[in-house]
């Protein structure tokens, strides 16, 4: 393998790559403003897409809080402390006639 063979191989590569060169006019004649607009639109749409994607991911990933219990069914976790011995006596009015005899 020598330099000439290397040059030939590069020539072949150049031939393949320059066989379909886009026309100069097509690339040159683009209006700068149009190009800027296109570039901004591309950046804007990418950003918007990224934001939407982040929102969707956030909604899908962040765990939901359990629903708050209704106030009518809520019970304090320390309620059992009020269950003292003889508490049922306090739930009703004492029968004084019965105790007199």
């Amino acid at each position, binding site marked *: *393998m020598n330099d000439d*063979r*290397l*040059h030939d*191989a*590069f020539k*072949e*590569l*150049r*031939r*393949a*790559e*320059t*066989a*379909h*060169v*886009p026309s*100069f006019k097509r*690339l*040159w004649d*683009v209006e*700068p403003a149009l*190009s*800027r607009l296109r570039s901004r639109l591309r950046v804007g749409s*990418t950003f918007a*897409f*990224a934001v939407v*994607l982040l929102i969707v991911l956030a909604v899908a990933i962040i765990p939901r809080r359990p629903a708050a219990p209704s106030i009518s069914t809520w019970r304090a976790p320390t309620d059992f402390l009020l269950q003292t011995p003889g508490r049922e006596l306090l739930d009703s009015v004492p029968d004084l006639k019965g105790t007199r005899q």
Partner: protein
Amino acid sequence: MQQEELERLHPASYAWALSCCRRDRSEAEEVLQDVYVKILEGKARFDGRSSLKTWLFAVIRRTAASRARRRSVRDLLLAKWAREQVVVRQVEYSDVAAILLTALQNLARRQREVLELVFYHDLTIEEAAIALNLSIGSARVHYQRGKKQLLAQLNGKLDR
């Protein structure tokens, strides 16, 4: 700078843009269009300190690199599935060209760039150094090491 001069260099510019864009034809066209827009808008000015071709190649390389940076940020933002939707248009190569390309892709980026500028685009090592914003000494080292590795990789493969 004359439009005719740029038109004369257009095929070489496109080929260099292809090289800077990993042989993606669509991306190379976009890069070249961006370069022409920069020139039209006066953001890139030829000051005559090097040859027009060397200067143009340096602008193409910088533009391709900055687009690649933007693209990598975009790819980070987008999910992998969205990235896979991008269709890469590539050139069809002969066997010899494909073998050479594979060997080139195994080289370090700087070595590949210097060798392509010298062997493909017929620049001198000094001109390649300017286009790549390197010192001449570094460009020479990249050239020698890259060529040695390339020849070792191609040894016997192209003679079939």
